[in-house]
């Protein structure tokens, strides 16, 4: 392996890694918001809306991100909607992640016992106060492991962004491979993803421990 080649290309990979993590971060934050909203709609069985959400969750989880991106990037141009690559990437990731996060958060909500809700109601809390102070803190503590798995999954999924010509890690590495330095590029690709994802993984391990204490009182 050519060390000089690797060192020379670190800035290039650094830039690509920055794009990857920025897109991932934006998409994942949106996923969480979408997931939370969808999970609450399903949990409280909001008429009509909860069926719609169920359909969305199935659609988002059972189609590949690549197809979703193709639809956003190429498909929508047919009806006159032109989205920038960055927009497509974030929207696509949020669309995919929203379904996964909704299920993760719902599993947390389901773990909150009925008597918790009744005792919250019996001290006169409104629905919103009940969700905010009683249900969500406990639900999120239960959902953290699933949210962590989804987050890491979604960061890895960003590797398909290269198909809509975004210069992310995968794109840069593939470019270099064409020049014939595939060993070095592959190596740098793997290291880059590890550098991005390992801290996320460690962060969630610690968060999980803290949430367990804070959310479940032990």
């Amino acid at each position, binding site marked *: 392996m050519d060390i000089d080649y690797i060192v020379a290309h670190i800035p290039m990979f650094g830039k690509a890694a920055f794009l990857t993590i920025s897109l991932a971060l934006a998409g994942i934050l949106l996923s969480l918001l979408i997931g939370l909203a969808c999970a609450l709609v399903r949990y409280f069985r909001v008429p009509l809306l909860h069926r719609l959400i169920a359909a969305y969750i199935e659609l988002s989880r059972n189609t590949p991100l690549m197809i979703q991106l193709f639809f956003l990037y190429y498909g929508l141009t047919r009806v006159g909607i032109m989205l920038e690559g960055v927009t497509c990437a974030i929207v696509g990731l949020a669309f995919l992640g929203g379904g996964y996060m909704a299920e993760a958060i719902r599993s947390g909500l389901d773990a909150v016992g009925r008597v*918790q809700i*009744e*005792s919250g109601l019996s*001290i*006169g*809390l409104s629905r919103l106060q009940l969700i905010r102070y009683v249900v969500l803190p*406990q639900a999120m503590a239960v959902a953290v492991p699933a949210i962590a798995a989804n987050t890491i999954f979604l960061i890895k999924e960003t590797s398909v962004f290269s198909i809509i010509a975004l210069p992310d890690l995968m794109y840069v590495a593939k470019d270099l491979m064409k020049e014939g330095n595939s060993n070095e590029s592959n190596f740098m690709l793997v290291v880059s993803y590890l550098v991005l994802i390992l801290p996320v993984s460690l962060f969630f391990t610690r968060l999980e421990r803290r949430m367990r204490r*804070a959310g479940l*009182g032990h």
Partner: protein
Amino acid sequence: MAQHVLEIRNLHKSFGEREVIHGLDLDVRKGEVVVVIGPSGCGKSTLLRCINGLEPIQQGEIFLNGKSITSGKIKWNLVRQQIGMVFQSYDLFPHMNVMENILLGPLKAQGRRREEVEAEAEALLARVGLLDRKDSFPSQLSGGQKQRVAIVRALCMKPEMMLFDEVTASLDPEMVREVLDVILGLADEGMTMMIVTHEMAFAKAVADRVIFMDGGVVVESARPEVFFETPQTERARKFLNTFQFREVRHCLDEDDEDCLP
């Protein structure tokens, strides 16, 4: 004439096809302690849950301090602030310590001042002997301690009346007493209460009136000494007999001859 805190008229409640309460009438005076007993499935817990709006009713009306809480547009969260309820299962919020559990309702639902409520909470905790546990989490408390905190949490809302739904049913026997003593204390202070329980000795001690329910109706309603000594109906006699039998069995198991009559 004594003022009625609670009036129930012709209450009907069903779960799907199955009607569990058939046209029940009941008045509870201010300061009265009404103990509701009866075989399981007789609708006594459901009755309490209807009063607190946890179960929608099909027919009839319930009045709290003369105002209907079953017709028109009801703000249940406001009604529930006037009716404290304690459940059978330990229902404290596990992610909050004892003090936070108690403060949540008064601060968020009632919007009262923290210093004022905290002082009240501490006084109530001291009364139930748990002031030193105010920073503990529910998982660090025994069942009896949790139930006492749950009672304080309901009391801190300054309710008009309290509902107790078999609050000692899941407790270890040695913890039953500490919870019942708290409720006895409340009775002495004149708190209006409805208590569903299977502790017959406790019912005798605390009740101003015993209501025996069976099949979704009030079968008997009498002062405790009258009800327990001379039950008027066959159904009530049979029900009370099962308890005596149980006590006898218990004595035989324990091999303790003193407790046989």
